[in-house]
């Protein structure tokens, strides 16, 4: 199957949201996606983009003019105070029916290229520890598990905690 990779455009926002929800559904978390097309549009295509996307497209089944969005990667740039810019891979998904065709590898290669062009020293991402296929997919390409090697644990302050910290305590 022939596919094409390109930078996402504002018109892709409905497809991006569809794929985000599909991946969330696979993780049985579809109800946790509260982001809307409006958010994705403002946050990705406004004056300061907070994320970037690569889209994978294939020809329609009847070989006509139709192009279908079948996969995507969402990324942004982070900063390591020891070495500088890094590319952070936030989300990465190819529709089930299009797996095993090299689209995932193609996306990773494209991102690696981009990371080199923008002078990033590495690419980072998180993987759920029980997601064996993904862990192997990445390790085959040289990824290291920093949680294992260096003992890093990911923490979060949710909105409630932030609001509590931001407001002065009662005297």
């Amino acid at each position, binding site marked *: 199957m022939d596919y094409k990779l390109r930078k996402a455009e504002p018109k892709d926002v409905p497809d991006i949201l569809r794929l985000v929800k599909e991946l969330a559904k696979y993780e049985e978390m579809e109800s946790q996606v509260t982001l809307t097309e409006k958010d994705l549009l403002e946050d990705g295509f406004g004056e300061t983009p907070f994320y970037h996307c690569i889209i994978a497209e294939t020809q329609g089944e009847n070989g006509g003019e139709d192009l279908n969005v079948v996969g995507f990667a969402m990324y942004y740039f982070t*900063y390591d105070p020891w*070495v500088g810019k890094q590319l952070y891979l936030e989300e990465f998904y190819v529709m089930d029916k299009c797996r095993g065709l090299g689209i995932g590898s193609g996306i990773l290669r494209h991102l690696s290229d981009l990371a080199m062009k923008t002078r990033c020293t590495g690419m980072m991402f998180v993987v*759920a520890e029980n997601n064996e296929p993904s862990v192997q997919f990445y390790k085959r390409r040289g990824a290291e598990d920093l949680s294992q090697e260096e003992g890093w644990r*990911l923490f979060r302050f949710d909105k409630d905690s932030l609001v509590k*910290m931001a407001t002065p305590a009662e005297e």
Partner: protein
Amino acid sequence: MANFVLRPAQPKDVSDILRLIKELAKFEEMEEKVVLTEKDLLEDGFGEHPFYHCLVAEVPRDHCSQGFSVIGFAMYYFTYDPWIGKLLYLEDFYVMQEFRGLGIGSQILKVLSEIAVKTRCSSMHFIVAENNKQSIEFYKRRGAADLSSQEGWRLFEIQKEDLLKMTAK
């Protein structure tokens, strides 16, 4: 209560920021891993597109035994969660030893929380080394949840040499 000021970093703070990054790295016995230069920090933080933001803590110069005025900092940037949107990511957070226990760290976290709420971030994320019990307690006391523990997330990295290998394929 210590006499200190918290403010956004300016280009002139770049040498102090690098000094504090190296001090924190030294504490982790990793000082030689800091390859970033003042020039990088200047371009990356104060150019057309900032890749990071910093808050710095300042005291009167004669209050610091080594004669510095900038005695603490926090480095952060914005990330994006595809389910809920913008997040504030706390990358580095350090107060010089002689200024610990004076409420500077708490105040830095408070200002960061305000920034997060103002910029409509859904939460603040950061990583902590699992053996850094003091920091873990500091954050847990303020409501932080250990997502590695709760949700099983592991942090991965593909370094430059392997990225290059992939571009060649």
